[in-house]
């Protein structure tokens, strides 16, 4: 009881500390609560909509038509479990209007029962699913109407058939992320698709079987999935439940929230630094009290409990504040979510968010403050009675052990937030390296400066007096200087890094503008290839890299059977595991070529030996390096493929680096020529850069002659990627801004804490003849040094990290965005000076007498 009383009385009587600590932790935890709530709500909305997204209880899909045996197997298994099974086909194709405009569309051919769950609502209810089946009707998304200047009732050709636009889609519950798809959606009756002749060999189409289970089997959907998995052995066939559909949709949002989570973690870490500093100063004030309690017989445990209780209460109050704040901005989050995803619903703040955020806030403050507390409480009583004035930190190696729990806590949180062991670990390492460099490097540097320069320097020249004094203050008060540099530098680094990455991505996508193709062609049938080349010559456009594409699936790797990943339902899996699973479970497109094209480089192994002739040996394979890593392939490994029922074996002879942003036809697996040349195939090709007018003209001509060939506008894709990245960068910038704000708040809190000392020092300087102007100059010089070091370190690190990311992801060196960095620098100086002037104002004008008292 006494412990409780002391703890609360202390907090109430230390209002300054309580307010600063609360606000600091509140800022730090706000990011975490916002993100957790965002993720929670996305998942909850997706869960609610998951059946609508899949449109069924179970869906079996593959990039090929199911064999008779497979269909029979499914039907036999489901005969007493399903209400209905229906087919659906999705395929990309060019659409053509009556004035010969053409656009790529995603055709979704469905039966009249579609969807089992959800709806496809049309503007003005101009048609229904029945109508879509019987007549040559199609429904299109509004963006296609605008792009092709269509009106209701206008004809639109898909492949060899001309349809009539009879509906404009107002709401489609099976569409998830708006504006991110490759092309606008067009609904067509399944029976009408055949007449388009779009489903020929090698078309990039997806065949889906949608299943509505009987009510008693709905709950056993997992079992159905498992059993179907045993019947359909091909890993290229996917069996999905509603939650898989929502997971797939949520993946993009989750990737975003993963990275936001990491930036939010930095915010928490920075506020932890600020909290640690405030707590340490609070304890300095309490050293005598601790001495008294000790001398009165209170145990170390009881004394520690007082301060742990205080940390618990402060964490709780700040977490409640953060949760109330986030609850008040939920409508804003809802609007953003609705704009991005089209999902709307009532957003809630779950209890899970509240107690998780409390655990994180309390954990962070405990692991940061406990080492400080333990070092202070453990001092001898006579030392405690000296108070904080003469307390000096003496860092010993064993102190590292005290901070080990904090390191582990941060690492664990980073991995959990990023859902990635690699990214979480990399992130923690970078964070710790920055902290170690700053916290160990700077004191050493300051000490060196002191010995070599400051203690030997006379500050008599007019300019050097203020600067010299500022440098002395800065280098002597190492803890405050180091913490403020650390807090500001990390904030600056994050803000700048996001800008660097945006610039790098833009440059990567926009580089070789003249050389990058404008159109990307796929689904070119073998018999159409020569005709297309001839058309290109005739019309004067250049067709680049026509590359064969052969569909296949992997049967064995090094003689071992290649299985579908069975670990799909683990509660927690990292993003790496998810990616690896997706890669394992999909069919693979092969190609064959003499060697690497202009966007490819062999990084390991040797080039192909020539044409494949010796049929007793496996053919030579070239594998894209990241794909090889995911499948665990190395030089010399053998891979067995199945191409239309025929087994073909290959041996890996080289690993390739591919610059995917070249937008040329590239493949994960390339055979040496002669091995699979006779396999049925389609072709991919690119069309060189054109003006906008030419682009549409060429596209229209190709579609006019080869209606099944699909064409993607690379320019539009690049602009879509940039728009997505910009939206992500905006969200990340807000979080990085939060970090920098915390950095500034830490600076403000530290400055407020030092005011007493600064007032005293200012008074002494005034006594000996310092004018208010000189005082201000000295203070500004001190903050100038701080802002400069924070900018140099923060911006420097952002450039280095930006380069590392550019090398890892883009295989190239990025160009730093100097203008963006300059803007950040100016902002940092401005805010730092503002804090300095606002804090210093209180003692420039005060009389010396009151300052000294």
């Amino acid at each position, binding site marked *: 009881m006494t412990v409780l009383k002391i703890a609360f009385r202390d907090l109430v009587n230390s209002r300054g500390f309580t307010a600063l600590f609360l606000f600091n932790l509140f800022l730090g935890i706000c990011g975490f609560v916002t993100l957790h709530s965002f993720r929670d709500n996305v998942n909850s909305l997706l869960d609610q909509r998951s059946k609508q997204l899949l449109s069924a209880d179970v869906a079996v899909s593959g990039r090929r038509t199911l064999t008779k045996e497979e269909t029979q197997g499914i039907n036999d298994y489901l005969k007493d479990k399903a209400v209905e099974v229906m087919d659906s086909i999705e395929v990309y194709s060019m659409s053509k209007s009556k004035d010969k405009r053409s656009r790529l569309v995603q055709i979704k051919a469905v039966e009249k029962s579609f969807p089992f769950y959800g709806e496809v609502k049309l503007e003005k209810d101009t048609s229904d699913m029945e109508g879509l089946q019987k007549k040559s009707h199609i429904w299109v998304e509004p963006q296609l109407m605008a792009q092709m200047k269509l009106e209701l009732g206008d004809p639109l050709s898909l492949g060899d058939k001309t349809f009539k636009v009879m509906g404009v889609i107002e709401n489609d519950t099976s569409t998830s992320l708006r504006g991110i798809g490759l092309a606008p959606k067009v609904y067509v009756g399944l029976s009408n698709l055949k007449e388009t002749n779009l489903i020929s060999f090698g078309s990039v189409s997806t065949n889906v079987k949608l299943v509505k289970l009987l009510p008693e089997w709905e709950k056993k959907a997992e079992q159905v999935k498992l059993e179907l998995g045993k019947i359909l052995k091909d890993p290229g066939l996917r069996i999905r439940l509603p939650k898989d559909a929502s997971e797939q949709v949520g993946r993009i949002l989750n990737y975003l929230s993963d990275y936001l989570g990491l930036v939010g973690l930095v915010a928490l870490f920075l506020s932890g630094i600020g909290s640690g500093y405030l707590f340490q100063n609070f304890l300095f004030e309490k050293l005598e009290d601790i001495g008294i309690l000790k001398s009165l017989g209170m145990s170390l445990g009881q004394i520690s409990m007082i301060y742990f209780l205080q940390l618990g209460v402060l964490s709780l109050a700040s977490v409640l504040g953060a949760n109330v704040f986030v609850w008040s901005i939920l409508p804003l989050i809802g609007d953003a979510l609705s704009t991005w995803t089209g999902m709307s619903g009532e957003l809630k703040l779950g209890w899970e968010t509240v107690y998780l955020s409390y655990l994180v806030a309390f954990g962070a403050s405990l692991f940061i403050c406990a080492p400080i507390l333990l070092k202070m409480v453990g001092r001898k009583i006579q030392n405690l009675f000296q108070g904080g*004035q*003469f307390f*000096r930190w003496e860092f010993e190696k064993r102190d590292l052990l005290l901070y080990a729990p904090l390191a582990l806590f941060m690492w664990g949180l980073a991995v959990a937030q990023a859902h990635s062991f690699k990214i979480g670990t990399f992130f923690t390492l970078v964070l710790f390296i920055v902290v170690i460099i700053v916290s160990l490097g700077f004191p050493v540097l300051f000490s060196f400066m002191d010995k070599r320069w400051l*203690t030997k320097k*006379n*500050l*008599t*020249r*007019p300019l050097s*007096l203020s600067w*010299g004094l500022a440098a*002395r*203050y800065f280098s*002597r*008060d190492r803890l405050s200087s180091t913490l403020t540099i650390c807090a500001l530098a990390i904030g600056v680094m994050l803000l700048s890094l996001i800008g660097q990455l945006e610039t790098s991505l833009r440059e990567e996508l926009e580089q070789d503008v003249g050389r990058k193709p404008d159109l990307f062609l796929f689904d070119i049938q073998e018999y159409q290839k020569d005709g297309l080349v001839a058309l290109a010559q005739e019309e004067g456009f250049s067709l680049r890299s026509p590359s064969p594409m052969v569909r296949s699936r992997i049967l064995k790797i090094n003689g071992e059977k290649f299985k579908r990943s069975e670990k799909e339902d683990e509660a927690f899996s990292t993003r790496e595991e998810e990616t690896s699973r997706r890669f394992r479970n999909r069919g693979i497109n092969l190609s064959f070529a003499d060697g690497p094209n202009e966007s490819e480089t062999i990084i390991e192994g040797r080039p192909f030996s020539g044409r494949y002739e010796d049929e007793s040996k496996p053919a030579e394979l070239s594998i894209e390096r990241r794909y090889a890593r995911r499948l665990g392939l190395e030089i010399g490994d053998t891979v067995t493929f199945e191409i239309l029922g025929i087994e073909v074996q290959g041996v890996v002879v080289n690993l390739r680096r591919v610059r995917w942003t070249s937008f040329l036809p590239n493949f994960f697996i390339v055979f040496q020529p002669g091995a699979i040349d006779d396999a049925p195939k389609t072709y991919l090709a690119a069309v060189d850069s054109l003006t906008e007018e030419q682009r549409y003209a060429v596209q229209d001509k190709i579609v006019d002659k080869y209606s099944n060939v699909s064409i993607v506008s690379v320019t539009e894709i690049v602009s879509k990627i940039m728009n997505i990245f910009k939206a992500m960068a905006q969200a990340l910038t807000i979080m990085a801004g939060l970090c920098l704000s915390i950095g500034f708040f830490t600076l403000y809190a530290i400055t407020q804490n030092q005011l007493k*000392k600064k007032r*005293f*020092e200012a*008074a*002494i*300087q*005034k*006594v*000996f*003849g*310092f*004018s*208010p*102007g*000189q005082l201000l100059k000295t203070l500004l010089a001190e903050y100038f040094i701080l802002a400069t070091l924070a900018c140099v370190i923060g911006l420097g690190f952002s450039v280095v990290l930006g380069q590392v990311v550019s090398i890892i992801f883009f295989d190239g060196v990025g160009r730093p965005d100097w203008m963006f960095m300059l803007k950040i620098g100016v902002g940092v100086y401005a805010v730092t000076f503002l804090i300095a002037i606002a804090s210093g104002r209180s003692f420039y004008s005060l*009389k*010396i*007498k009151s300052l*000294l008292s």
Partner: protein
Amino acid sequence: MILEVDKVVKGYTQASKKLDVLDGLDLQIERPKSIAILGKSGSGKSTFLSLLGGLDRPDEGKIVVNGQNITAMKESELAKYRAENIGIVFQQFHLMKTFTALENVMLPLEILKKENPREKAMKALEQVGLADRANHFPHQLSGGECQRVAVARAIAPEPKIILADEPSGNLDTETGESVMNMIFELCQRRESVLILVTHDTDLARSCDQIYELSSKKLKAI
């Protein structure tokens, strides 16, 4: 005339009530000497000292130091006046905690842009017997040593007037005596006026002249 204090009035407002501390106080000092000002706690000794040092301004009256009326000076002129004319020794030492002993002594010299401040500060430290502690920080020094550093800081720029506010108040008797002897000796050697505020009658007797501050006025004893 080194110092002339003419009908100085000073009061404070506390809880909307005006309290007069000094009322028509006069003092003249024509030549270098040591003066003690005695008085009870709250009699206004320290207030008077802060007016002489230009740390505060009187409500009425004037203070003239070496022909300069400091009551009419602007803040920046007062700063210059303090730097050139006054050395102050406080009861609580008031050293810069992040500066070494030498740097503390150098500070007024650097503010005055004197030549060779390091050498001059070192000499002042030698005079107070702390040359070997020059690179120590205040938290590494004893109370007596801190006060000696404060004395060295006060005398280093060779001011005409040294104001000492209970300089031995925070020290034990022996250390206090030794510090005071040192102050007297240095002031005498440098021909500075020493104005010592104290309530220690024995210490006051060591000065050339003693005043008592009572009933808001100075009376020579």
